């Protein structure tokens, strides 16, 4: 019974979309960390992608609303910092949806990045529009905290790349 409740609560929370990348759910992003059921009380743990991410307030409200709409009465949404979010938690489904949306998904794993010294190399980033690997970074910082700005030398289109962190 309790397990069934938790699954229903997870399902409701997991369907909440990221307000800045509306094709991704918070589950795809790895922002949804845990759902616990304690009697009638549902507690949902979410974690910010970046410390200053302004979308967290909206996500928090949306999760609460989604659970209330799904029939849960007492809902608590907690923001937790540890363990720190990493792009490694993004689901394969999430990466596929990002590409379709026109954003290049994170390339490689966060651990590889951290193993490097002060001078970096980056892995090739595939253009989400034409698929070419002939791309270059225009700026390591983009339209939101989580993205860098790239351009494709094959189709000449600029695009966002979800940074590895």
């Amino acid at each position, binding site marked *: 019974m309790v397990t069934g409740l938790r699954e229903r609560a997870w399902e409701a929370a997991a369907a909440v979309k990221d307000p800045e990348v509306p094709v991704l759910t918070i589950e795809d992003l790895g922002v949804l960390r845990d759902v616990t059921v304690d009697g009638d009380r549902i507690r949902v743990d979410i974690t910010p992608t970046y410390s200053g991410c302004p979308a967290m307030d909206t996500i928090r409200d949306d999760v609460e609303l989604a659970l209330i709409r799904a029939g849960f009465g007492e809902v608590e949404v907690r923001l937790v910092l540890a363990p720190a979010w990493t792009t490694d938690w993004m689901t394969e489904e999430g990466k596929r949806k990002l590409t379709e949306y026109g954003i290049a998904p994170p390339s490689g794993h966060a651990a590889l990045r951290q193993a490097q010294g002060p001078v970096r190399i980056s892995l090739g980033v595939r253009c989400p529009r034409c698929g070419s690997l002939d791309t270059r970074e225009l700026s390591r910082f983009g339209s939101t905290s989580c993205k860098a700005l790239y351009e494709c030398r094959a189709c000449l289109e600029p695009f966002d790349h979800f940074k590895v*962190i």
Partner: protein
Amino acid sequence: MSAHDLDGAIDPHGDVSVDELALAAELAGSGERAASADIAEYALWLGDDALILSQQLGAWITYAPELEEDVALGNIALDLLGHARSFLRYAGSWDGRSEDDLAYFRDEAEFRSSWLVEQPNGDFAQTIARQFLVSTYMLELYSALRGSTDATFAAIAEKAVKEVDYHRDHAVQWVLRLAGGTAESRARIIRAFADVWPYAAELFRDDELIDRLGDAAVRPSSLQAGFDAVTEAVFAEAELDIPAGSASAGGGRHGSHATGLGHLLSEMQVLARRHPGATW
């Protein structure tokens, strides 16, 4: 800082609710309030450095040399504001003040920021020189703070370290570019480092507060070697000499600040003080 609390309800200034305090502690991952006045004080050291630097960088938006740089400095400022919010919330959990109380309603002498972050933006080279020194220090600091015996500090650091890694990378790239660019850009970055270098020493000074905190804090002097190794490597690559000159007196950790801080605070705080409780 958000004019709304994280529950989405309007948060009239000065009306610190129990919920807000609980949220402050839970955001940091510990579910507890700051353990002591010393812990809260150390949180102010770290939070104020991040807050003041964030405010400085925000002033570049629409003024940077290129659009991408407006975006980069704006994003770095946003990350720093996130770190500041976490630290200030934690600091305030000790005596019931909110992050906004601490950011907007403290006077200059109550701030604990270091002189380096208080140095003016100057030209782009000066901002980059300051940014390189601060982000190199912060990366060393947060790497070490991950091992803090204080769970909240460890959690904030675990998150911040990955972001500051990008900040240092950004600054390194610009130091190399300015040093290896035109005669003008090279002259400017040399002058910029000469101007800001003396203020870095304060970041590595130990203090009685640190002695009392033990393994909950990071001993500033322990970060010097890592900082030196990175600056030497980058300066060698950029073919720059480490600036000579004596260290500045500093005093920010005890409320004695560089000239620019008062102006910066008056601009940062004017709206909140003129219209207490303003929301949008």
